[in-house]
């Protein structure tokens, strides 16, 4: 894979919610086809970093280059149309839409999107429940739906926020397989995770976020050597 081609480059990103300053100069890069995990404590700024990439925070300053284009001044929907798929922490399943309407909601960008049959093959539960109200699905099904939705859209950069949270171990295992699958298909993924043991085998690199900044960067092959550092930051 062309692992050395830079896909996302964030420089000195500051972001605000109203008056409160939440990101204090985030710098990170993600190469095409890479899976990068953002680790850190609650409130460290991991979710805010994802939201800032899409312009979902308040004011942003700095630079966010996406596939060679500056997006810091773009409207949220324009950024999404460049091929960014977002799976929010609360999953973002709409109560007023059926399962299938939720799935087909994002307009497709480019021709990379998966076909409906492929998606239903990957997530057979969603096919069975296609006419159910979105929020009537179980937690695991909702998470699968949130994943399936961004695969349908044809997004290339996947922003996944706490997707393993609150799910049964067997579902978490399934999700791990899905992510592994997506990696091998060449998607670029940013994984925000509380669950270190879920993220560790999937991530090519990890960033540790602390106080709205990147505190450390750890490559996959350094995980064992840097256990102490991880202990310090995460208490794992």
């Amino acid at each position, binding site marked *: 894979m062309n692992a050395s081609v830079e896909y996302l480059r964030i420089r000195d990103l500051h972001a605000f919610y109203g008056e409160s300053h939440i990101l204090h100069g985030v710098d990170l890069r993600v190469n095409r086809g890479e899976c990068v995990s953002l680790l850190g404590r609650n409130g460290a700024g991991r979710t805010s970093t994802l939201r800032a990439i*899409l312009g*979902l925070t308040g004011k942003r300053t700095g630079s966010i280059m996406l596939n060679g284009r500056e997006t810091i001044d773009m*409207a*949220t*929907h324009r950024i*999404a*149309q460049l091929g960014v798929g*977002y799976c*929010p922490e609360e999953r*973002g399943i*709409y*109560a*007023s*839409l059926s399962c299938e*309407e939720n799935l*087909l*909601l*994002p*307009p497709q*960008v480019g021709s990379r999107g998966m076909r409906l049959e492929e998606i239903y093959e990957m997530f057979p539960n969603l096919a069975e429940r296609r006419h159910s109200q979105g929020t009537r699905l179980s937690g695991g099904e909702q998470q699968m739906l949130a994943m399936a*939705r961004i695969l349908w*859209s044809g997004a290339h950069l996947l922003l996944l926020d706490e997707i393993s949270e609150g799910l049964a171990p067997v579902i978490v295992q399934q999700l791990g397989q899905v992510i592994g699958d997506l990696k091998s298909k060449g998607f670029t993924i940013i994984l925000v995770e509380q669950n270190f043991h879920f993220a560790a085998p999937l991530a090519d690199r990890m960033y540790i976020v602390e106080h709205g900044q990147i505190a450390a960067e750890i490559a996959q092959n350094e995980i064992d050597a840097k256990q102490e550092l991880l202990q310090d930051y995460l208490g794992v």
Partner: protein
Amino acid sequence: MTSFFDIPIQALMGQLMLGLVNGSFYAILSLGLAVIFGMLNIINFAHGALYMMGAFLAWMALDYLGIGYWPALILVPLAIGVFGVLIERTMLRWLYKLDHLYGLLLTFGLALVIEGLFINAYGVSGQPYQIPAELAGGFNLGFMFLPYYRGWVIFASLLVCFATWYGIEKTRLGAYLRAATENPKLTQAFGINVPIMVMLTYGFGAALAGFAGVLAAPVIQVSPLMGSHLIITVFAVVVIGGMGSIMGSIVTGLGLGVVEGITNLVYPAASNTVVFVIMAIVLMMRPAGLFGKEQ
């Protein structure tokens, strides 16, 4: 003669028909309010003024330009829709981040300004608008006389209401609209241009009001005050049906029109207040309205 509790059947049917005609206007207007409230979170007090403008534009088109009823039925809602888009772009969009109250105040002020301008130009007495020749006259149904135009009003408004319901509940564009109503920021993060949808929604709600105005022009006097007379009742309809519920506003609009008609027969003095009595009762029993969801 057949009668129903001492009420002659002709009178009953006549009032039912009148009630359905009034209910048709309630339904279209409260539908527009519901759609706008769902998407913009704004209680559109200018709705009555937009309805009045619809009737006036139809009258002006005929009087000044010789444009008849049928073209007006298409052109006037388009014009009012464009006017709505202008209001949204130039004024309303600055208020989204503020409390709902500001939107209400702005649209209330707009309604007063628009009404004032029309009163200034045309006075408060009504202008007559002829029923189109194709719809003059009526059927004799045996038990009652049905004027064609009244039948047409009911048919046309039901058609528009159900087309709107279908568009929102059953189509892809409607799914965007429902999603953006439920969670605008997230919907935008999926690549949907929510600001444009908000603008078009206001334009569409305004166009519905304009359409109701054209429909109403031949049955009532076209007057600058026709909107403010109707809008208070329409707000009561929206409260009874439940804010933001599409089907709720259609069913409640028609139903309350009929209730008003029947009250007019049974106890005429109460016909102007019955809707508000029902509103008070509904608010006590179900604060979210008959079709609304508790939040």
